[in-house]
């Protein structure tokens, strides 16, 4: 799975936690989940749990703390998917 594919999948994970779905249109690797997408910080945990089941990975505390932008989410998801195989 390349980065663009992960972004497309990640959008589906983020959508339920966004009030303004139109913000997803301008998404790029620098997009900040809280500042740009206006996601409630308490929902970051739900996003991580949904991403875990979607990609069949396990995300630890240290990695979770880094997942603040779309780019860093992709980094962590890629890293976890690669270390699994």
């Amino acid at each position: 799975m390349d980065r663009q594919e992960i972004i497309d999948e990640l959008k589906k994970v983020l959508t339920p936690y966004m009030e303004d779905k139109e913000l997803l249109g301008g998404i790029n690797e620098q997009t900040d989940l809280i500042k740009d997408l206006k996601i409630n910080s308490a929902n970051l945990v739900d996003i991580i749990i949904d991403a875990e089941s979607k990609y069949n990975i396990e995300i630890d505390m240290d990695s979770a703390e880094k997942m603040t932008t779309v780019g860093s989410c992709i980094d962590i998801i890629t890293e976890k998917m690669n270390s699994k195989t």
Partner: protein
Amino acid sequence: MRTQQYREIVEQLPYKSSFLFVDNISLLNEDQVVGDYTLRKDAFFYEDHFAGNPITPGGIMTEIMVQIGLVVLGIHLITCESGQMNVTREGKLFPLLTSTNVSFRKMVLPGEKVTVISRKQYFRFGKLKCYVEMHNSDKEVIAKGMFSGLIKQFRHNREMSQMEKA
């Protein structure tokens, strides 16, 4: 032994007097909690809600579900995780409700005893999510819903001093 342990958790709750809504804990483990509270007839909110017709406010019912269903279980989980007692001492820990979709089926009148049953959905990265039901003494469902909250722990000195600056 167990009763003693439950009582210690209730004593650790950061709520006091008129806003403490936990009387007894009858079951508590890493996955669930059951507890009860009897609404005091002289509670502060009955005089005005409603004038001449006291009914427990939905907000108070929600608070009872939060205190038993989320906060008691949350403190228990943190105590298990950290291995230390009295995690709430000196304001090192405080609970924050982050979301609920509670729905109400029946009214609760002054003097009624309600039982709260909460089952953990997950506890991760400091966030606890539970499915919580409130029953009356006839075991009928009064209210139910998904509740989420954060148990915030001050990472001592650093966050404390940031708070003081703010």
